[in-house]
């Protein structure tokens, strides 16, 4: 009996040892499996991490592109508003540029090219082509002319300033009295407002501001009246001379009337007319020479220091 019990005890002891050995083997096998699996997982994690970083970099670029495209699309919702915003910034910068040029602390000078009495169906498009080719902005002091809508629109589209030069430009009529002058001026403002949706606030007197006095009108009162209507006015620093008639001088003489004197100034406004073929002929060379003299070309605005307010 005692022997049997002793034998049973030995057998159960062996079973426990075998069980322990089996568990050890299983654990060993599991450890090897985990170790190997970790090795391959680690490689996968590194590769996935690299792939994700690459994707995120591309996604950042896409997001930036999407933001840009969205902004461009949104701009269509209020193009007038966006143009007004950007023009405000632009003309503030233009004022800064003129002030800098006047102070002599700039490496550039400022030129305001101005064209009076247009638009003209035959010649204005050619002037616009030249300005476009040289990427130069100017100011067109327009009259109210029916049937030339496309030309006014093109001037506006190319970022030129549309100035007011009275509706009729008939010297005897517009200077017959201050009231008549104001009526003609406002008629042109309304014409341009209706056509382009912009309010002109820079004007040039037909014949220049001295014409007020030549016509026997009170200059001070006239200036007060245009100020009340929020107009600034400008005469000119230099001119080609094309206003005296297109055939009196050659293009070369027109050119030298400007470029021979422009080097003496920091800020100039040049009077020209967009009906003159001779001015058209010398305009490219004039722009090139003025550029060589250090000029940049700006369109006028009410706030430009060169525009007189009193």
């Amino acid at each position, binding site marked *: 009996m005692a022997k049997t019990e002793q034998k049973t005890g030995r057998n159960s*002891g*062996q079973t426990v*040892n075998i069980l*322990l*050995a089996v*568990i*050890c083997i299983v*654990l*060993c096998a*599991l*450890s090897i499996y*985990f*170790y190997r*699996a*970790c090795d391959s*997982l*680690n490689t*996968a*994690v590194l590769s*996935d991490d690299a*792939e*994700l970083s690459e*994707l*995120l970099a*591309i*996604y950042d670029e*896409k*997001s930036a*592109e*999407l933001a840009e*495209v*969205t902004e*461009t*699309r949104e*701009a*269509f919702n209020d*193009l*007038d508003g*966006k*143009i007004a915003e*950007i023009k405000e*910034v*632009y003309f503030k*910068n*233009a004022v*800064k*540029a003129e002030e*800098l040029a006047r102070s002599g602390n*700039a*490496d*550039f000078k400022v030129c305001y090219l101005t064209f009076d009495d247009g638009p003209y169906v035959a010649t204005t498009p050619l002037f616009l082509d030249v300005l476009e080719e040289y*990427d130069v*902005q100017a100011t067109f002091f327009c009259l109210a002319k029916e049937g030339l809508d496309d030309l006014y*629109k093109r001037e*506006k*589209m*190319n*970022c030129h300033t549309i100035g007011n030069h009275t509706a009729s430009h008939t010297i005897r009529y517009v200077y017959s009295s201050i009231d008549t002058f104001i009526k003609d001026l406002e008629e042109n403002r309304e014409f341009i407002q209706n056509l382009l949706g912009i309010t002109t606030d820079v004007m040039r007197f037909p014949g220049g501001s001295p014409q007020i006095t030549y016509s026997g009108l009170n200059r001070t009162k006239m200036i007060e009246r245009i100020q009340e209507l929020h107009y600034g006015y400008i005469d000119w620093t230099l001119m080609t001379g094309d206003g005296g008639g297109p055939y009196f001088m050659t293009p070369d003489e027109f050119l030298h009337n400007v470029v021979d004197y422009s080097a003496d100034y920091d800020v100039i406004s040049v009077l020209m007319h967009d009906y003159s073929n001779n001015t058209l002929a010398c305009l490219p060379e004039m722009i090139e020479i003025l550029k060589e003299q250090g000029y*940049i070309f*700006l369109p006028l605005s009410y706030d430009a220091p060169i525009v007189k307010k009193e």
Partner: protein
Amino acid sequence: MKKFIRIMLIILLLCFGAVCAYTGWQFFTLYNTDSTLKKDIKETSEKMDDADKQISDLNKEIESLSKDNDLYTEYQNWQRQNRKLEEILARQ
């Protein structure tokens, strides 16, 4: 002798147990990391596809809106002129 073997087996079991637990824990950590990365890759790819589609749709829309649109041309011209002037001023 048998007792000695048992003690050795128990020590071995504890050692293998510890190694197994450590490698197992590492395995599950890496597994989870890899799953998260794969999920992120999938989500980012989907977002990219979505962004591509949106960009393509918007570009088509812009193309049709900008066709013969003087106002848009004017807006672009002002942007260009403003950039040009800002560059000149920045040089001073």
